[in-house]
């Protein structure tokens, strides 16, 4: 039996609510809220927090892809973010979209990124300060990133297919019903147009929620290791691809594997089931 870590590989990638409340006005940090609920930020947010909309700010409006490096530089400059700024992400839904935004920032090579452990719900549950005041920071001149790190942390259809055919680790982080093909969307969500239900052949089911406690904080390192290394068979030396339906829940798992367990070579297949389930010629599996 392998010995499991007792500490996160990168504990500095998390900040606790208590710490953040004491450092709201620190120089060199930007707090960034990213949610599924489009208007949630407008109803109140952590003082000084910026809003980054996963769709309007991070995605290209015409092509299904992320914004260009030029647009990313403009986004950061507009929000007073410099390459050396530490971006602390948080949001609703146990930080799904916060992890997604963090992953997108990493795509452009922004290195100083952290997640608020427990996200928006924990902050609110602890009755910490909220405001409706939208902050304005002095503009910066964020340099245009020289490249996007697609190869390093993002998987495309062909790569997911090769992973499937090669029998390498693929983790499906959706709900069991989606994995089995009984439903094509999250429980309690409206149908969103995927032709077929099921999963990528060879993918193991490990719903994202297994990585969190009831208060949306992340489980301890040894528990995470049991889940992903023992149960999912993820091998630190092998490439791993995670996916869900559109890439937000799998960003959460990508964060866990990359920052909390310290695995290299983990990629998020953001095309996920909305691409795979609709793709002509893509094989699916429906086993339990």
């Amino acid at each position: 039996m392998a010995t499991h870590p007792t500490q996160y590989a990168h504990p500095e990638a998390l900040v606790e609510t208590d710490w953040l409340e004491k450092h709201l006005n620190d120089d060199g940090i930007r707090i960034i809220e990213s949610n599924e609920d489009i208007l949630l930020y407008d109803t109140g947010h952590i003082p000084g927090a910026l809003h980054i909309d996963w769709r309007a700010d991070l995605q290209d409006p015409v092509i299904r892809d992320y914004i260009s490096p030029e647009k990313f530089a403009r986004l950061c400059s507009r929000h007073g973010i410099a390459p050396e700024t530490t971006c602390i992400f948080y949001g609703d839904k146990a930080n799904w979209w916060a992890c997604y935004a963090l992953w997108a920032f990493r795509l452009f090579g922004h290195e100083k990124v952290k997640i608020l452990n427990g996200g928006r719900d924990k902050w609110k549950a602890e009755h910490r300060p909220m405001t409706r005041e939208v902050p304005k920071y002095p503009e910066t001149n964020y340099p245009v990133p020289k490249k996007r790190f697609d190869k390093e942390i993002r998987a495309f259809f062909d790569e997911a297919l090769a992973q499937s055919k090669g029998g390498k680790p693929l983790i499906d982080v959706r709900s069991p019903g989606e994995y089995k093909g009984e439903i094509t969307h999250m429980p309690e969500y409206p149908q969103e147009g995927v032709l077929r239900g099921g999963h990528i052949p060879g993918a193991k089911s490990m719903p994202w929620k297994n990585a969190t406690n009831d208060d949306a904080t992340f489980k301890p390192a040894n528990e995470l290791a049991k889940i992903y290394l023992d149960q999912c068979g993820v091998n630190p030396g092998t490439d791993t691809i995670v996916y869900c339906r559109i890439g937000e829940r799998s960003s959460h798992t990508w964060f866990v594997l990359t920052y909390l367990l310290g695995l290299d070579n983990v990629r998020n297949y953001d095309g996920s089931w909305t691409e795979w389930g609709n793709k002509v010629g893509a094989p699916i599996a429906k086993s339990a």
Partner: protein
Amino acid sequence: MGQQSWRTDRKERVICSVIRSKFSFSMYPTKLNKIINLFETLPEDERRETLVSYADNAKKQEPRESEKFELVDVRKDEDCTDTVGVYLHVDENGKAHIRMTLGPEVQTLTRSMTAILCKGLEGSTPEEILDLPSDFVTRIVGTELVRIRSQTIYYVLTRIKSICKVYLDRQRVAQVA
């Protein structure tokens, strides 16, 4: 220059909206029509603020202790992230009065639509509500906020229409009997 252009643009939108409301036949109940016209004059940031303001007031649409209802439909289904309750009272003049309860996980836009519809449809007949076209929803919410998972913005209207349909079906059955 930019500010002037914005003002002119907004003025035009206000005038168009007033003309539309005064001179064109409206297929919407008067109260709802006023809300639609208001939203159509708002620039995006004010539209968001107004939607949030309606969402803040959604709790005021909950049933009060003394109120009695002909029909109550409280359920959690797959089209919404939490339980939504619809309460219908139809008065002696055949006018509908709707109250709603929302679970804590219901999204902000759904809260906004709850307050808007409860106010906008107040005093309409169940028949008028059932015949209401849904195209006004995007005129209120705006294209910026209609996107993936946008079905949730139609959910409240669907639930209100559903309870009105049950009410009318029961009335018809009672009349035949």
